[in-house]
């Protein structure tokens, strides 16, 4: 569905250099710190920016060559962009009706009302949560095959986040062939919805793994300096120096559980993994 080979995009002090493959029917998450390159990657996939080098294929086409028929099959919600906030939902409904052949107006209005979104109020009067819900509804109501969401839960409280995630789960549950690429800096959102996760830092993929594997097999070992010298380091992916000694990321949790029962082993927590992988103090 999406294939990226050696995508390179350089800005003044930032370079994106990424390869990834997202097959049809897969839910892939991109996680990383602010400024890691998540939005740049999504913009490149959508053809909003041009790559300096490398190849990007969305529906087997260069995103810049996607025609209007191809775009009918894509639903998008961007973090910092959407319809003018001078418009109201009724206006948006008129626009989407003319934009998408398969836009389900009745369903859209029903879901808006169900989600407590007023139809006649300007978007500028909406709360952050209401805007986020509306963005996702706009992206999914024409039933796209490929859904691309950039930070759909950013700035939301836990209730609003769950509502947005529930909308996505329902959308995905209706058809196994639906593909979702979602970025977030809130790792717990991705853990609950994604089949695999790409961890990005400074424009590079620093880890790509199935979510189940991350949760089951990855762990963080908290080890004192003296003990660190003694343990087998062949399954340690990355080490970070701490005040107490070292935090070590491993993808063989069971091995260390069995052989070193005295050390502290914390199960896969993506936030901690990002801290270690991206060498954040």
């Amino acid at each position: 569905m999406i294939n990226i080979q050696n995508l390179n995009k350089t800005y003044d002090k930032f370079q994106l250099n990424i390869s990834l493959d997202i097959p049809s029917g897969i839910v892939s998450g991109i996680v990383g710190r602010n400024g890691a390159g998540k939005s740049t990657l999504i913009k490149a996939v959508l053809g909003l920016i041009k790559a300096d080098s490398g190849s990007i294929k969305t529906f087997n086409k260069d995103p810049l060559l996607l025609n209007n028929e191809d775009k009918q099959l894509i639903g998008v919600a961007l973090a910092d962009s959407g319809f003018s906030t001078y418009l109201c939902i009724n206006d948006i409904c008129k626009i989407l009706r003319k934009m998408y052949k398969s836009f389900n107006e009745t369903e859209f209005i029903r879901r808006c009302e169900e989600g407590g979104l007023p139809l006649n109020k300007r978007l500028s009067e909406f709360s952050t949560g209401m805007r986020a819900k509306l963005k996702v509804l706009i992206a999914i109501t024409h039933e796209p095959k490929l859904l691309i969401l950039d930070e759909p839960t950013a700035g939301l409280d836990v209730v609003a986040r769950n509502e947005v995630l529930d909308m996505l789960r329902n959308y995905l549950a209706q058809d196994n062939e639906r593909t979702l690429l979602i970025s977030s800096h809130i790792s717990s959102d991705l853990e609950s919805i994604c089949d695999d996760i790409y961890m990005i830092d400074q424009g590079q993929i620093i880890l790509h793994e199935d979510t189940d594997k991350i949760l089951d097999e990855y762990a963080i070992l908290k080890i004192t300096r003296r003990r660190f010298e003694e343990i087998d380091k062949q399954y340690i992916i990355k080490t970070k120096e701490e005040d107490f000694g070292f935090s070590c990321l491993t993808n063989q949790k069971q091995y260390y559980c069995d052989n070193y029962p005295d050390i502290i082993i914390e199960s896969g927590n993506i936030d901690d993994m990002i801290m270690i992988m991206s060498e954040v103090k």
Partner: protein
Amino acid sequence: MKGLMAKDFCILLQRKKSFIIILICGLCMSISNDASFFVAYLTMIGTIFTLSTIAYDEFDNSYPFLMTLPVSRKDYAVEKYLFALLISISLWSFSAIIYFLISYFREINLVFIEEISGLLLVLLLPLIVVDFCIPINLKYGSQNSRILIFVLWGIFFAIGMLVKYFIPDIQLPVINISPLIISLIIFVLAIIITLISAMFSISIMNKKEF
């Protein structure tokens, strides 16, 4: 394209109150003074309103999202011209009918062909503004282009004044052609200029990164 038109129309309706006030002012002026002024006034104001839709797209950073909808960059640029022309022609037609009605009630004898050719020339003005402003707005953004357009109009005005000052007695050749034919020739030229302007706008959109 239809979706973009619907979007711009919805945005335009947000300013319906200001437009109604402008319309009433224009009607009052046309009743008390020269009714032909009303045609130029309403058509021009309507065109400026349509150009403001670019600023609305920019204001909430809507560009990236709009480009993910089933519309191409070319569609976006072309739609701005079509929308401006659609609104300008609608307002021109409406104001021209008002003009003829006022003239009829004032019992002014009008030569229809001459009046229509004069009014057609009025429609040229918004076309020139559209051809000039859309590429500049797309290239430099609505904020910067406001300053740029102001400066450019100033330069054109200064050149005009200098020409008038240094060459005061320009004798234009007398051409014995019907005003309607002249209007039509000017219109063909205007269409060519509009096509060139649209090509510039499409090229600007194609090069843009969002």
